[in-house]
């Protein structure tokens, strides 16, 4: 009986999903949706450019704890350095350098919350100097790493 009940459940679920999809596509589009369609139709990026730049972001996600040069990122995006920086900035509103910095600080916050020491966090996220890391962390978050660590300990829910 079980396979039959499973098949029946799957059919009902699929029918409901299709019904929702049909319903949503039959609804007249709101002002917001029309504006979204219009704006994103006019953006001058080819689909492959999105894919290429996302590859460089994936590279940053994987190698943020290592020394990452602009050349590495441009290579990962199959672009020249000039084009890569220009397109990244137009696409995401940030330079790759700032994006990587924010990514590293975000990882640092997670590691501090996990209980690693400040020194461990510093090297884990690709910085080579604790004072440099602390200064960047403070600039990005408003807290020194130690203050953030203390804050998190007292905030635990």
């Amino acid at each position, binding site marked *: 009986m079980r396979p039959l009940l499973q098949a029946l459940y799957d059919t009902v679920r699929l029918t409901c999903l299709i019904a929702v999809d049909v319903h949503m596509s039959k609804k007249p589009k*709101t*002002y*917001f*949706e029309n504006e979204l369609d219009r704006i994103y139709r006019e953006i001058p990026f080819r689909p492959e450019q999105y894919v290429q*730049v996302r590859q460089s972001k994936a590279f940053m996600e994987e190698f943020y704890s290592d020394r990452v040069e602009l050349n590495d990122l441009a290579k990962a995006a199959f672009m020249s350095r000039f084009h890569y920086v220009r397109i990244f900035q137009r696409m995401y509103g940030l330079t790759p350098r700032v994006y990587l910095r924010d990514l590293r600080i975000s990882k640092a916050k997670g590691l501090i919350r996990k209980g690693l020491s400040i020194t461990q966090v510093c090297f884990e996220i690709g910085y080579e100097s604790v004072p440099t890391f602390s200064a960047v962390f403070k600039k990005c978050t408003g807290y020194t790493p130690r203050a953030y660590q203390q804050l998190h300990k007292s905030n635990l829910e």
Partner: protein
Amino acid sequence: MIRINLTSVPVEDQEKALDFYTRVLGFLKKRDVPLGEHKWLTVVSPEEQSGVELLLEPMAFEPARLYQQSLKEAGIPWTSFAVDDIEKEYQRLSSLGVKFSIAPREAGPVMIAVLDDTCGNYIQLMQEL
């Protein structure tokens, strides 16, 4: 040094909003300060409990109500929150009964979805791609 540490969303009913923003969306209550007939009521992300607070602001000013209703009628979200996995959040929230006016879709370098917060607003979720 002036800092940005607060944003707000206008709500018809603060208690209903607190329930939706905590039990459904997953934020944590941060401040709850009686202020006359209303409260200074804020929530925070569980991952950034000392970070930016979201004020669940009572809709107590009629001209603001007109603005809120106009945005809603046009399908425009009041604000946008970041998510790591928009499909996963869409499934989770849909299973909790949340209504979406826009299911996850690509919008250039991001994916967005728009939900009804049951308190007078559409809220956008955004995942950077």
